[in-house]
């Protein structure tokens, strides 16, 4: 590649990044230090009220009172995202491993099937779960069939939210995990059995360590969008438990507090960047160990 191309050829890419990624981040950052407009919207200024609002509320006499209510929302969001990631990981590993053992033709078909839900709108998919878990839905019918008399009500529970999140994002876990296990030399697994290792030993000491780049990559791909997810908490969780995504949406919508919504969005962004930095450090450390 000529030097000219390296500079000028990448202009479209840089322009796109600037317009769709960097500029919006600056706008959101700008809004977060703005002032709340009288009738929604905001006015430019430099005011950290929105950030203060995350940790403190103003008491009757204008004194600051520490209020963990938003911290709890952030912690809850992290918790659900971590839970959904862990469940996805546990489900994706056997699925990906099983796919990797099939014939070349079946592999292509199965991987296509894994990505199939992506062809359907997210809202439709979440609504499908609404119907499955709802009153007299499939879940309740099955529960009754196996002798359950009083149905606990599946919808609007933490479980329903997790089911929705895992369902929405698990393909993002399966694909990188599959890519990693697919590269494993089957002789290594045979070697671990040959050396008196059970299936569990092979999984723990050979498959997982060698597939770890894929496991970590998939976990990030699931964890990050789960942090900002809106539909599952709203539709399947019934909005009973506020999460960061919903909170941000509320601030820009009903509550008409753009600066506060933007401030929460910035916190979310920082959390995501933190996860990515931690992963990058881990990856370079691993490279150093290998070198």
């Amino acid at each position, binding site marked *: 590649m000529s030097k000219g191309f390296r500079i000028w050829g990448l202009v479209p890419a840089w322009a796109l990044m600037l317009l769709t990624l960097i500029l919006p981040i600056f706008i959101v950052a700008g809004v977060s230090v703005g002032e709340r407009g009288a009738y929604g919207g905001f006015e430019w200024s430099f005011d950290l009220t929105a950030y203060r609002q995350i940790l403190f509320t103003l008491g009757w006499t204008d004194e600051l009172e520490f209020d963990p209510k938003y911290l709890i929302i952030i912690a809850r969001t992290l918790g659900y995202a971590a839970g959904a990631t862990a469940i996805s990981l546990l489900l994706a590993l056997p699925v990906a491993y099983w796919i990797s053992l099939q014939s070349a033709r079946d592999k292509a078909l199965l991987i296509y099937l894994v990505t199939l839900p992506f062809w359907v709108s997210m809202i439709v998919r979440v609504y499908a779960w609404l119907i499955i878990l709802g009153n007299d839905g499939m879940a309740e019918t099955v529960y009754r069939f196996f002798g359950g008399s009083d149905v606990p009500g599946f919808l609007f529970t933490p479980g329903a939210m997790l089911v929705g999140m895992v369902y929405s994002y698990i393909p993002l876990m399966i694909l990188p995990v599959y890519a990693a296990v697919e590269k494993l030399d089957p*002789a*290594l697994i045979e*070697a671990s*059995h*040959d*050396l*008196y290792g*059970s299936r569990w030993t092979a999984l723990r000491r050979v498959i997982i360590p060698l597939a770890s780049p894929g496991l970590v990559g998939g976990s990030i791909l699931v964890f990050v969008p789960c942090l900002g997810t809106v539909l599952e908490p709203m539709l399947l969780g019934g909005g009973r438990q506020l999460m960061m995504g919903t909170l941000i949406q509320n601030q820009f919508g009903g509550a008409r507090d753009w600066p506060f919504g933007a401030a929460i969005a910035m916190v979310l962004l920082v959390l995501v960047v933190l996860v990515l930095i931690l992963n990058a450090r881990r990856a370079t450390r691993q490279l150093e160990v*290998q070198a």
Partner: protein
Amino acid sequence: MQKRLSAIEIIGVSKQFGDFTALHQVDFRILQNEFFTLLGPSGCGKTTLLRMIAGFESPSRGTILLNGKDISDSPAHKRRVNTVFQNYALFPHMTLSQNIAFGLENLGWERGKIRARVGEMLEMVHMSQFAARKPDQLSGGQRQRIALARALAPGPEVLLLDEPLSALDLKLRQSMRDELRRLQRETGITFVFVTHDQEEALDMSDRIAVMGNGHVQQIGAPDEIYEAPQNRFVADFIGETNFLDGEVVSVEGGHATIRTALGIDITAAQSGVQGPGPAVLSIRPEKIGLDARAEGETRSGRIVSRNYMGGFTHYTVEAGGVSLRVSQRNAQSRQGRLDVGDEVRLGFAAENARVLGQ
């Protein structure tokens, strides 16, 4: 051979892959402390047989006994058998020590014993100074040694080796042959070695099973396999030979008299000959003598090609309408040198020929 117990007994084992039969009713035994080789052309089922002994594949029919116990249904990780894989299959994320310790840990050895054993194994394959390296920091020959150390460490009842030398260059292969023989003698473990290289098999083995087309064609010591092949497949696969089509005129015990295009009736040891009828005479090129070295009943021929190989000269001689490959050790002087077009007498001792059924 003195009476020894069998380490492995293969009893009526067949293996089917879909419609394809990779092994047909195989029966044989491998003795304890033996260096046993499975030799045969590509695709004859050597790896399949080895994998069934290791437990990676199960027989479609038949049983496999390990030291008298039926292991047909026990999973690979419960069999006291270890494998040296063709591409070594060392764990890339573990150091060499960790690789060797892996099997011992799974067997539940205690730490101190494991450390001592790993050290002992590294020393045995002359790799002690590399203990902390990862497999990708080793040469092919070094990986081979570690694969051996890892498989021998748990002290298996049988060690299986699937073409372990095929990935090495020629010189290394030669020295690893001696190394493998040494390790087998030192450890006293039964080795089952797979190769398609006949020279390797003849050089290293106590006994060889020649396999072809999913059948065991012959089992015997290297010289037995070479000197007394039991059928056309074995005679053809091991070394070089001349096949002369002919008619058996009489059979008497282990011997048959055959009339070939050479025009001489030859009585030689036979196998697979039921009675008078078509058969072949097999005679190795170096067993045929020319002129002064011609033994037995001789006849005349003419040299049509000559290849000087240093220690030997290979000739093609035409006699009675058949062409024979003949190989002669070169004399100390250049006297009696033969050239293309020369008329020669050729002959061989009948005890060096074999009559083989069709």
